[in-house]
């Protein structure tokens, strides 16, 4: 299987998106949808993914489900003529992406995505959209302003987009996966790396050890000469514990569930590896707040009329020389 499938499917996909983008009658939309689905199905079939339910605990099925929902919602998002619906479709994309994150065992990011994106950012969008756009009387397209109904140069955009897709797909799309990718660490290496992080979490280590040896009295975990308490042997970890009873250190093998969980690893990396970036993100958010305040507070423009009035000296409404530019005259309160 050469790139034939990919290129042809790209062309089909491009035509499909184009048909869906441009305003037109329903049958054309149906054709577009079918084309798009066909292209997707062909790629799925040709890429020989095994969609068996038992692969990785059903991950295959879930992957297809989530990614199809994400892609379909994304297409719908850019093709829907009502911005509000676009935003809601974006929520769908975010939710299904969160599903993909779960499949990728990034639980923390999955929930953070839902909370931050779907919960916070999108709500802001919806808020502004509702603020800035009037509710159409009818549900069909005629109620929408022209700029929402008619896309701009869809064919050019589609061509550009799918050329890029061909490039990226060409790279990702081959029977054996992405070519020349460095081999991932083996399971054992991964376990070692995870265990090593436990050193940075002494309380968690101690409680795991206590649970393991079944006592809550004082224990002392003996560190090795490098100062690390967790000793690892072939992917499994143990600690040497000195308890009140025996002076001789006792070996305690740690159970798998003592291994740092995803959220702990993320948190640890965030604090230990990227502290400056964390601060930087804080500064950026502060800056964004400043910016939003300044932009929202400025009622910048003096109309010609007002300039003359200000020059004549009688033009100061509240605040004097600067005044609210009236929302473009005669729209009947363009805020609704």
């Amino acid at each position, binding site marked *: 299987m050469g790139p034939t499938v990919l290129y042809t499917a790209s062309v089909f996909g491009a035509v499909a998106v184009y048909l869906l983008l441009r305003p037109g009658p329903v049958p054309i939309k149906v054709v577009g949808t079918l084309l798009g689905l066909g292209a997707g199905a062909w790629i799925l079939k040709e890429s020989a993914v095994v969609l068996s339910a038992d692969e990785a605990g059903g991950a295959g099925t879930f992957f297809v489900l989530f990614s199809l929902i994400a892609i379909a919602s994304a297409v719908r998002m850019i093709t829907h003529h009502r911005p509000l619906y676009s935003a809601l479709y974006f929520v769908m994309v975010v939710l299904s992406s969160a599903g993909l994150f779960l499949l990728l065992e990034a639980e923390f990011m999955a929930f953070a995505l839902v909370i931050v994106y779907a919960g916070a950012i999108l709500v802001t969008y919806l808020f502004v959209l509702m603020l800035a756009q009037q509710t159409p009387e009818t549900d069909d397209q005629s109620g929408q302003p022209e700029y929402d109904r008619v896309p701009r140069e869809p*064919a050019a*955009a589609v*061509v550009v987009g799918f050329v890029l897709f061909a490039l990226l797909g060409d790279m990702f799309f081959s029977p054996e996966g992405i070519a020349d990718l460095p081999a991932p660490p083996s399971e054992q290496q991964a376990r070692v790396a995870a265990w090593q992080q436990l050193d940075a979490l002494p309380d968690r280590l101690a409680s795991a050890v206590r649970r393991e040896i079944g006592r809550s009295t004082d224990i002392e975990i003996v560190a090795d000469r490098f100062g690390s308490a967790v000793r690892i042997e072939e992917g499994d970890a143990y600690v040497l514990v000195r308890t009140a009873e025996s002076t001789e250190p006792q070996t305690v093998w740690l159970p798998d569930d003592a291994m740092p969980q995803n959220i702990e690893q993320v948190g640890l990396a965030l604090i230990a590896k990227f502290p400056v970036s964390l601060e930087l993100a804080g500064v950026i958010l502060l800056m964004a707040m400043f910016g939003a305040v300044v932009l929202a507070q400025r009622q910048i423009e003096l109309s010609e009329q007002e300039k003359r009035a200000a020059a004549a000296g009688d033009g100061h409404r509240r605040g004097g020389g600067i005044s609210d530019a009236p929302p473009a005259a005669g729209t009947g309160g363009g805020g609704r």
Partner: protein
Amino acid sequence: MASADIFSVLAGNLTLALQDSAPIPIAETAVGMGWAGWILWLPAISTVMCGLCAALRVKNKLPAWITVGLLGTSFLMTLALWLRYDHPVVIHLLDWIVLGGDRWTFIANFSLYVDSLTLLWMLFVTGLGTLIALYASEYMEADVRGGYARFFAGISVFLFAMTALVMADNLLMLYLGWEGVGFASYWLIGYYYRKPSAVAAAKKAFIVNRIGDLGLALAIYLIWHTFGTVEYRALFEALDSGSYTAEAGGWSIKAIPYLLMLGAFGKSAQIPLYVWLPDAMEGPTPVSALIHAATMVTAGVFLVARMYPVFLLEPASLTVVAWIGGLTALLAATIAMAQHDIKRIFAYSTISQLGYMFMGLGMLSSVGAAYHVFTHAFFKAVLFLTAGVVMHGFAGQVDLRKVSGLRHLPGFRITSFTMLYACACLAGVPLITNGFWSKDAIMAQAFISTGPGFRALGVIAIITAFLTAYYAFRVWFRVCAGPVHFEPGEEQHDDNHAAQHGEFRPHAPRLAVNLVLIVITIGAVGSIFLKGWAGERIEDSTAAYLSPHAQGVGFWGDPHAWMPWVASAVGLLGIAVAGYFHLVNRKAADGLKNAMLANPATRWLPTAMENKWYVDELYHLMFRGPLWLGGHILNLFDRYIIDMAIVDGVARIPRLLGRGFQPLSNGILQSYAVSMAGGVALLAILVFLMPQLVDWLSHWMGGAG
């Protein structure tokens, strides 16, 4: 005899004899000569002081006296340097750019390279600079309340840059001066910035010069790349070592002379880059005299002379120099014959004489060329200065048909006779004029050196000498001889009350102007006796090259023997023809021209000559046009090809079938976004997808077929 072998020689291989190449004298580092730096710094100080005068709005002649004083001092120091000179030296002044490490270096300091070539140039640059500044102090006095200080600041900048150019000890400093004189020229040509033509001329000069500068810049780079240095001393040492030859050096050694040539031709107004010089006459006349006749335009000659050893590595380049010079000399002389504007005639004559100089350099007569530079500086300065007197005296009148009989007018006597002598020099009147001797040296060499078509060039030079004599005396007979008659020009001086009453009285020149004219003329006379001296100067320098001697025997075997006779004959013949048409029977000239115009077969000749062979128009067509067109085409390309054809065009294919075109407007955010994304996609196709696509297509086609 020459015409017989033109073709055979042109077709044959170049057989320049290089047997006599003398070793280049290597400079020593001078100790305790730091004072020579003031030759360079004094003009700079003068610039600053004139600038201060401009800022303080000084309304008297102070800037002129500052300039004359400081430049005069500079000249005296040059003189002192010359008197103490015994061997080439490098005088270190300041560190400027020092780069590099063990592997390579790039060193360009503010240092002076003083050899006799430098001194020869510096003597007339500073000397004439001082005198012309003195002349200008009177000539420009109408502007005392205007741009007087600005003018002298410009003159000082020019002299600073020219000094840097000539005295530099490395090519980068030379480049600094090179750009500097170009800039000063731009400044001074555009001095009358109220005249749109002056501004246009200034711009033209700058841009044409930049084309040449590009060549120089590339040449400097290549020299550095090839020889590992831009310092003359190290460069000449490397050349002397003999390890660089055209065969061994590869393409860069071959390319360097041609690039240098491009730079030299730009600055010295040779084909094809001469078009800026006639227009440069829009500047004040002292500027024309100083910059566009005596000094700056010889920078190209200086460059070739300075880099002569490099040219000698690739002798074919010298042949090109000679031919371009010869053709330029002829072309400019024919144009000069048909002009009516005195300054323009002299401008074309400058181009023509510069052509002689290049011819001399190209034909291995570096002594002749340098001597001609030296003599030309004097008589051309006089010619321009007298033209300036005419302009000044007759309210900007420069048309030689409208001024006549100057020598009979009171106060213009000195002007007339100095002009007569200068015209005689230009025409090459035998024995008593310096031009005769210098031109003769070049023309004779044409028949000695063996190179492709050098004999033909010699004939061209002789023809040009005839034309030169004709147009030089055409000017003099028209303007100075004949009955007294004049029409004033359109520039009314504010103080000329007579003009307001309909009565025009010419302004006779006063003390400073007359003094300057006389001094320079005396200098011209004196330079007759300096041929041997100039020759020694050259043979001691980097342009040292022992010209081939005549191989033949007897009178006809030695061109140096018979050439004076031939040159005298054509010169006097030209003067006689000019005398007939422009003094004895002035109607005949017009009659001849009208007759030629009336005859359809010959009509093209006077018309084409008067229109300068349509070169400007050609240039407009060739350069300005395409540049302008290119800009617009690329704009259109940006707007229509990128936006419309590539991006939108793809979008249009379906729409062309349906709705036709939709007007494309710009300034729209998403139009930019599409262009950007389109650029990304194009790059992606080019870099990553193209190989894949080709593979895929060939595979697919192969599979299908």
